[in-house]
């Protein structure tokens, strides 16, 4: 197992190296004046980290992102579970989430600015609009997809409704709920960047807009790549937390 772990790490590093090399070569051909090389982008990244502008931007972006995600996770998971468990809640709120999930939410962001202005509320709302529906819908489907025989098993041993929900339905639904959480968090990142590009430039959105306007393309690319990496790391971290805390059966085979 140790050996296998090391080889996967090797392949991961190799693919990153290949990607960086391809980027470097493409940048050096000069096919597009606004396309920096990999090394220029990396240098720009460390420059921005050193002068504090990157850190400041992330602090600023984190505020609407974290508030929005916390709200989406709490409301999304609980309303999803409620819709899965109760017919009346399902009848009442499912259509809303279906519409929200199907509608191109980014098109509604300009509308949000009309109602909520350009402040924090509008940005939080942008995150929620993108993250909430997918989290709620996945939690709902997760509850509905619990094998009926497991539920019958619980009743056959005279488990109460409470025991059925806490000891069968929620654990059985958790893998799909976590899949929804990962999607929702990724959507939340889209939401915050969209908000910062479309509503008012702050944080990461501001850094991208500013460096584009002064033709600092290496810095612009560095910012974009950094937010992509942060999103990937966050989603990966969620998966790690799920495995550590909620999936004993996956750990045992290692």
């Amino acid at each position, binding site marked *: 197992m140790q050996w296998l772990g090391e080889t996967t790490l090797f392949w991961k590093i190799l693919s990153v190296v290949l990607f960086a090399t391809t980027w470097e070569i493409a940048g050096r051909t000069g096919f597009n004046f606004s396309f920096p090389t990999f090394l220029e982008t990396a240098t720009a990244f460390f420059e921005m980290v050193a002068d504090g502008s990157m850190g400041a931007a992330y602090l600023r972006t984190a505020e609407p992102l974290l508030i929005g995600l916390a709200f989406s996770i709490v409301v999304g998971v609980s309303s999803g579970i409620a819709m899965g468990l109760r017919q009346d809640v399902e009848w009442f709120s499912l259509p809303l989430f279906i519409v929200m999930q199907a509608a191109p939410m980014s098109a509604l962001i300009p509308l949000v600015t009309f109602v909520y202005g350009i402040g924090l509320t509008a940005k939080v709302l942008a995150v929620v609009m993108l993250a909430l529906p997918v989290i709620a819908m996945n939690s709902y489907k997760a509850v509905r997809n619990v094998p009926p025989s497991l539920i019958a*098993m619980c*009743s*056959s041993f*005279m*488990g109460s409704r409470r025991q059925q929900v806490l000891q*069968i339905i929620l654990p059985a639904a958790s893998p799909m709920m976590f899949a929804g959480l990962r999607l929702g968090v990724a959507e939340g990142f889209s939401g915050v960047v969209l908000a910062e590009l479309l509503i008012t430039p702050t944080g990461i959105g501001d850094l991208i807009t500013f460096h584009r306007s002064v033709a600092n393309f290496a810095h612009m690319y560095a910012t974009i790549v950094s937010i992509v990496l942060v999103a990937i790391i966050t989603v990966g971290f969620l998966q790690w937390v799920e495995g550590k805390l909620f999936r*004993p*059966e996956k750990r045992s085979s290692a």
Partner: protein
Amino acid sequence: MNLALARNDIPSDRMQSTDPIIQVRGVSKTYGDVQALENIDLEFEAGHLTSLLGPSGCGKTTLLKIVAGLLAPTAGDVLVKGKPVEGPGPERAFVFQDFALMPWASVLDNAAFGLKMHGVGKAEREERARHYINEVGLTGFEGKYPHELSGGMRQRVGLARALAVNADVLLMDEPFSAVDEQTRRKFQEDLIRLREVEKKTFLFVTHSIEEAVYVSDRIVLLSPRPGRLSQIIEPQVPKDIDPDDLRRDRVYLDTVEEIWHAIKQYVE
């Protein structure tokens, strides 16, 4: 074949059990406009193994679930130890066709789940679960998870869970249909041995004629669409001979043949 005639095949003295633990009285069940069961009257004797046998669509699983209290009959009622069934009860335990194990829980936790629902404390339920894990031959697998076990082993966990609650009646819904033939045979032999050790009443749903004849004291034959009582057979196969000899026994083979002829007309 005329169904009224078929019902006449049932000798009246066989309908009367001396010590019925379960009485099914005039049970019917309809799903929408589909009649799954029609006017079933049956008694199950304590300490016996009775099979419900019939082609698919005869309502045998529906009948078992009604006895379990997992489904309510449209008409009629079921008495267990003289008391009407209004839902699942501690005197009945169910073994599921698809095992119904919790994938996130170890073999020990799965086997102890029924006891946990009954409110038994952790130390005691784990001790009893260990005893029955041993009984079904899974010692050493307590810490494993269902996905690490074969189909046969998973059903043994399901069986241990049902045995652990110490119910009087074990309701088994095609318990061996999802395991391979070799495991199935071993299972059937184990079931016969288990029945002698545990002294429980077994209700056993199967679509395998050989299986029913091999393991049962009594076979209830149901006919499909709507599910009705067609015939009751008590295989007179010798009880105390070697399992391998039994499978070649004259009476065993004749009984299998007899049931096949009774069922054949319903199989399209």
